C-alpha cells in the first residue's frame, strides 16, 4: 500500500476516482454504460469523448514543458486550425441540395494540420533562434493567432454542413468515439516515441539535465524546434475535433482558455512546470480530471452564474490533495505524534 502511494500516478488516479465516486453518490446511474445503436453510451464515455481534445493538446504541452518551455498559444492555434479546415470545406451545397465540400476533405484537414504545425514551428523559432522567453514568445501567437483566425472568417462563425466532416468530433468506431481513438492513438504513439527513439531520449535528457545533455553533444535547439512544432500540430488536431464536434468554426471562442486547462492538466499529472521528469499517462489523467470536474458541475446542477467559482474551488481542492507539503501538514495535524512514534 505504501509503495503504491509513492507511485507517481497514485494521487492523480486517486483524485479521478474520488471525483467519479462523488458523481456516483449524487447520481447512482452515473457510472452506468449502455449499448445502443452499436455504440457505447454513458457519462463515462461522454467524459472521455469531451476530454479528448484537451488530452491531445496537453500531450503536446507535456513535451514542451518537459524541455523547460511553455506554449500558451495552443488555444489560438486550435482556433486557426478549426477556421482553416471549415473555410476549405466550406458551408456550401451542391446543385441537388446535398451538402458538399469545396475542397476534398483530406486537403482541408491536411492544410489545417500543416498550418498548425507551422504555428508551432514559429513559436519554436522565436524561442530557439530569437532567444525569447517561451511564455513571451508564445504570447505573441496567443494574441495574434485568434486575430488571424477572425480575419480569415471576417469575424463570422462558419457553419459546416458537409456530413463527413462530423466524423472526427462525433463519429464512432468499434463502439467508441472517434475522438477518443485519436487521443488514444496519439498517446500510445507518443509513449513509444519518447521511450524508443533518439529524439525521445534527447527530450528526456534535456528535460532531466540540459547542461549534461549539452556536454554529451546533444543539440538542444533542433530538438526544441521539433517539440514546439509537435505541440502546434497537436493543437491543430484538437482544433479539428472541436470544430467537427460543434459542426462549425468560431474564431472567437474555439479553444478559448484551452492553454490554461492544458497547463493545469500537465501539472495535475505530476509534471513540474520547471521541466524534467514528465509523465504522459499523468497528463492524460490530468485532462480526465479536468473534464470530470466540468461534467460534475453540470450534473450537480450548479447554476451557470456560480459555475466558475465552483470550478475554482474544486481545482483548489484537487491541487491541495496533490500537494505533498499539504498532505504532510494534514498528517501532522491529524497524527501529531506520528513522527516520534
Amino acid at each position, binding site marked *: 500500500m505504501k509503495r503504491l502511494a509513492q507511485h507517481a500516478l497514485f494521487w492523480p488516479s486517486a483524485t479521478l476516482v474520488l471525483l467519479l465516486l462523488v458523481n456516483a453518490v449524487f447520481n447512482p446511474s452515473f457510472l452506468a454504460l449502455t449499448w445502443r445503436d452499436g455504440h457505447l453510451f454513458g457519462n463515462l464515455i461522454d467524459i472521455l469523448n469531451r476530454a479528448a481534445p484537451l488530452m491531445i493538446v496537453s500531450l503536446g504541452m507535456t513535451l514542451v514543458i518537459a524541455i523547460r518551455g511553455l506554449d500558451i498559444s495552443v488555444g489560438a492555434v486550435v482556433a486557426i486550425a478549426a477556421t482553416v479546415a471549415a473555410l476549405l470545406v466550406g458551408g456550401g451545397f451542391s446543385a441537388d441540395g446535398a451538402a458538399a465540400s469545396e475542397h476534398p476533405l483530406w486537403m482541408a484537414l491536411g492544410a489545417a494540420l500543416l498550418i498548425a504545425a507551422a504555428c508551432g514551428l514559429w513559436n519554436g523559432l522565436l524561442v530557439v533562434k530569437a532567444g525569447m522567453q517561451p511564455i513571451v514568445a508564445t504570447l505573441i501567437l496567443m494574441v495574434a493567432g485568434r486575430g488571424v483566425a477572425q480575419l480569415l472568417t471576417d469575424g463570422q462563425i462558419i457553419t459546416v454542413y458537409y456530413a463527413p466532416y462530423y466524423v472526427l468530433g462525433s463519429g464512432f468506431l468499434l463502439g467508441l468515439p472517434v475522438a477518443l481513438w485519436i487521443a488514444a492513438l496519439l498517446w500510445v504513439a507518443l509513449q513509444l516515441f519518447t521511450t524508443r527513439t*533518439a529524439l525521445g531520449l534527447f527530450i*528526456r*535528457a534535456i528535460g*532531466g539535465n540540459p547542461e549534461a545533455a549539452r556536454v*554529451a553533444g*546533444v*543539440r538542444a535547439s533542433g530538438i526544441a524546434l521539433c517539440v514546439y512544432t509537435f505541440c502546434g500540430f497537436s493543437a491543430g488536431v484538437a482544433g479539428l475535433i472541436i470544430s467537427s464536434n460543434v459542426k462549425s468554426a468560431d474564431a472567437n471562442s474555439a479553444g478559448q482558455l484551452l492553454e490554461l486547462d492544458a497547463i493545469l492538466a500537465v501539472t495535475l499529472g505530476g509534471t513540474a512546470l520547471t521541466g*524534467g521528469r514528465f509523465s504522459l499517462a499523468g497528463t492524460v489523467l490530468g485532462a480526465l480530471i479536468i473534464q470530470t470536474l466540468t461534467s460534475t458541475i453540470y450534473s450537480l446542477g450548479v447554476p451557470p452564474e456560480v459555475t466558475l467559482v465552483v470550478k475554482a474551488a474544486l481545482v483548489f481542492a484537487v491541487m491541495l490533495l496533490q500537494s505533498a507539503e499539504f498532505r504532510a501538514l494534514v498528517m501532522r495535524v491529524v497524527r501529531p505524534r506520528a513522527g516520534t512514534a
Partner: protein
Amino acid sequence: MNDRAIVLEARGISRAFPGVQALAGVDLTLRAGEVHALMGQNGAGKSTLIKVLTGLCPPDAGEIKLFDRSNGGQVIALHSPQQAQRLGISAVHQESHLLPNLSVAENICAGRYPRRPWPRGGGIDWPETRRRARELLGKLGIDLDVTQLAGGMPAAVQQLAAVARAVAGDARVLILDEPTSSLDADEVQALFRLIRTLRDQGVAILFVTHFLDQVYEICQRITVLRNGRLVGEYACDQLDARGLVAAMVGREVAEAHKSHAHAPAAATAPAALAARNLSRRGVLKPMDVQVRRGEVLGIAGLLGSGRTELARLLFALDRRDSGGIDVDGRPVRLENPGDALRLGLGFCPEDRKQDGIVAELPVRENIVLALQARMGLAKFLTRAQQRALAEKLVAALGIKTASIETPIGQLSGGNQQKAIIARWLATDPRVLILDEPTRGVDVAAKQELMNEILKLAAGGTAVLFISAEIEEVVRVSDRIVVLRDRAKAGELPGEAGEDAVYSMIAGDA
C-alpha cells in the same frame, strides 16, 4: 610586525555539516593595517571560516574576540551578516553583488539611506545620498560618476564600488573572498591600490585568493588551512611560494615512484589533438597544448589556474577568443560540443551532478547518450543494442549497479563517474578529456579509474588528465603541462616527479 594592534581574534573555531567536519579548531588573528591571506585548496574550510566570521553560519565551538581601541577584547556571538556589519566586519564576495538597476550612489548607501526630516515630507534624501557616496569614494581615491547605473560598469569598477560599500559603515575588518578571480591584470592593480589605501587607514583585511603571486604582492601574513584544520600562520617573508604550496597540499614533496610501460606514438606523428594560441579573455591566456595518440597528458595546477577552463575550451563548451584546433594534424571547425563529439573528442566534466549525469534516467540511457547524439536523430539504437552496449561497458569498467535500468542518480559517486566515462568509451573517442575524474570518489575506486585511464592510453586513445591531486597526475602522465595564473607555466616529462611540478606551480623553476 607583531606590534600592530590585533583587531579580531578567532580561537578554536569548529563547524560540522552533515557528513563533513568543515572546520576543526581553527585559529585566525587579524591585525589593523595588515592584509592577511587565507589560503587552502578546495574543501580546506576557507568558505566556512568566512561564513563564520560574517555571521552566516554560527560555529559549533570556539570564540571570536573583537578588540576595541580602548578595551582588551570582547567575545562576540555573530548570528547575522547585518549584525557582523554593525560590529564592523564586512565582506565582499567573488562576484560583486551590486544591484545592476540602481545607481552607484544608491548601491553604496543601500540599507542606510539618509532621510529627509519630517517637515520636508520624510522619504529618502537623494542629494545627500549622492553627496555621501561621492565623499566616500573620494576618501578612497576612486573617481566615479555616482549617478551611473552600476550594471553598466565594468566588472572591476563594480568590484571597487562593492568594496567601497562594504567599508562605508566604518568597517574595521574587511573580508575579500576571491575578489580578483574575474579581473584582468590592470583591474587587479586598481583593486590593489584600493586595498593598500584601506590598509593604510588601519583596516584589517582578510584576502582569499588562489593566485600565489597576488599573495606575495599585497599580503603581509598568511594563514593556511587544510581539510578544515589549521596548518599554520606565517609571515610572508618567511614562507616562499613552494613552501606555501606544500603547506596547502599537505605533502612533504617527495620523490616520484611511477613507471608504466607503454609507449605513446612517436613524437613525430601528428598530435591527436593540438590547440594553437588558445585563449579566452579573463579566463585563459594564449597557450599551445597537444596530446598524441596513446599518451596521457597531465594538466597540473592549483584551483583557478585555468585547468577546467582549458578543458572546456578544448571541448568548445565555452567560446574561445583565439586559437586554432587541429585533429590528427588537420585544422578543424570546432564551435560547439556537437562538433567536438563528431571529431571524436570526449569530455568527462568536473561537476558530475551538474554537467554529467541525467539523474533520473537509467544507467543504460546515460551510457548511450553521447553515441546516440553522434548518430543523430534518424538512426537510433534499438533497446537490444542499447542493452548490449551498456552491459558490456558496465562489465568492462566494473560499474556496480543493481541493473542497467537503475536510475543513475542512485549509484555511488565513483560508479556515476565510471558510467560517464563509459558514455564516452561507447563513442570510441580519439581524444578523451577527463576533468577531475577522481574527485569525490573513494580510494579504491580512484585506483580503478587510474588503471582504466592507463588501459585506455595503451589502447591508443589520447587522454588529457586533469586533477587537483598532483600525485595522481604524476602517477599516470607521460607528460605534464603545468598551469599557473591561467597561463601555461611550462611542460615537464612524466618522470619529473611531484617535486618538479610543485616548483613549477610555485613559479621558482
